[in-house]
């Protein structure tokens, strides 16, 4: 009975985090983007600096009609948003935010495998949406998503493998337990590769070719309305949270910090994740969209060689230490 309660409580907390943190990131994006462009951003909703803007948006989306195109593959079309969103919920379960059993939804022994495999599923949602919409823009978006997924999954995996090699384990808490501060410079290239590839996988600007609104409307999401469209958007922000959390855990030492090691580990994790989320927004505001060929070139000629070089470096240092 106690076990059931424990599991239920953990799931509830993970679900609450999953619902709240992406909204915080979304609101931060509204405000940071606005100020980086010399604007104020939302100011009215909720009274104080538009804090309730995303709540209002959610209410708006919920009121809209849920349209399924006549020619669409109905079941697939309706399932796609859930397929895009749920993997991120599952990944959050496995991310440790502090030391010990209490600070992680569920300890998964093959943590990196689990996390990366499940994150890969998320992109399937876009593919399903693109194919099932029976719309040429959606299809183009879906194809671009597929191309991007193929190109960026590899450097991401290689960079993560480098950390696993360094720690000698694929468990996320295990990696953090083995973490030393000098891993930071040692794995910095891998961290950059992982972060950039993750951005591309989330289809965030400057890697938003699959949803390039000036060319193909909104890619795979063109035909979506109302709540299903909102779920895709939520998936994007949940994806930011997951990517930043994973980068924090794998490369930035998670709960380790210069001080407050015992009780305040979770603060360090949240702080690092928040800073990374800011960087995600910052990159979005700063850079224009990459062209499709530039996108592929970046992955195959820059990120993958860098990731392989990182693995080689990791191996050499590891052997030298032993």
């Amino acid at each position: 009975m106690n076990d059931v309660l424990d599991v239920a409580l953990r799931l509830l907390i993970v679900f609450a985090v999953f619902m709240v943190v992406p909204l915080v990131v979304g609101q931060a994006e509204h405000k940071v983007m606005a100020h980086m462009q010399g604007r104020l951003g939302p100011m009215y909703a909720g009274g104080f600096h538009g804090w309730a803007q995303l709540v209002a948006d959610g209410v708006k989306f919920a009121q809209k009609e849920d349209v399924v195109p006549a020619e669409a593959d109905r079941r697939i079309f309706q399932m796609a948003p859930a397929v895009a969103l749920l993997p991120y919920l599952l990944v959050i379960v496995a991310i440790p935010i502090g030391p010990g059993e209490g600070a992680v939804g569920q300890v998964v022994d093959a943590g990196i495998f689990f996390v990366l495999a499940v994150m890969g599923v998320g992109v399937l949602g876009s593919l399903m949406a693109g194919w099932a919409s029976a719309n040429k823009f959606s299809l183009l978006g879906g194809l671009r998503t597929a191309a991007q997924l193929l190109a960026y999954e590899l450097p991401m995996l290689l960079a993560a493998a480098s950390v696993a090699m360094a720690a000698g384990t694929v468990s996320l808490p295990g990696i953090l337990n083995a973490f030393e501060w000098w891993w930071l410079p040692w794995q910095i290239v891998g961290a950059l590769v992982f972060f950039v590839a993750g951005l591309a996988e989330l289809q965030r600007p400057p890697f938003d070719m699959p949803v390039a609104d000036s060319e193909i409307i909104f890619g795979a999401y063109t035909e979506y309305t109302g709540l299903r469209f909102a779920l895709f958007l939520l998936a994007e922000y949940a994806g930011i949270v997951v990517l930043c959390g994973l980068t924090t855990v794998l490369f930035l030492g998670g709960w380790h910090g210069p001080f407050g090691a015992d009780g305040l580990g979770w603060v360090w994790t949240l702080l690092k994740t928040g800073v990374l989320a800011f960087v995600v927004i910052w990159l979005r505001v700063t850079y224009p969209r990459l062209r499709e060929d530039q996108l592929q070139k970046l992955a195959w000629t820059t990120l993958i060689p860098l990731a392989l070089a990182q693995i080689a470096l990791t191996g050499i240092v590891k052997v030298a230490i032993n």
Partner: protein
Amino acid sequence: MPPIPGSGLAKGLAVTLRTMTKRTVTAQYPDVQPELPPRTRGVIGLFEENCTVCMLCARECPDWCIYIDSHKETVPPAAPGGRERSRNVLDRFAIDFALCMYCGICIEVCPFDALFWSPEFEYAETDIHELTHERDKLREWMWTVPEPPALDPGAEEPKEIAAARKTADKLRAQEEREAQEAREAQETRETQEAREAAESPEDRSDRAAEQEGQE
């Protein structure tokens, strides 16, 4: 020297970060009123007490957007036996702000300072016909006209003030002269009384006895 690879990317990041720390340019207009520069051409106010219905403004207006109606009244003579005078009375003064191009010629041309620029700008209407504003509205806008900006230090005195000072000086000089005369009259009276007081007390008692005897 070739640029360091990635320096352009870093520059881009620096630009956005710098912009974020600066003040935003967004005007929160309905909540915060804009700070308008002096001499803002918002709307034209009418100080109708100064208007003599000379019609110069209406005639100079390039858009013919000023409407003036008036009639004449006879004023009884100011002094008895004088001549009756006639006077223009303003019946209607309206400006059609749908036509007005805010050139300000009417304000320049008014010889009696009856028209002024007001910074007031919130007079949008939903119907173009309602943009013709009548004298009461124009008079109300007079209250929003700011006082004229201060003169530069060392500038020549405005003609109006010079004229007013001249009159005031003349008036003060006259008052002083009158006061002087009054004082002199007072002094002569006082010397008179002093002289009377200096006469011998016997004389005075004699005079009193005489008066009693008369009674």
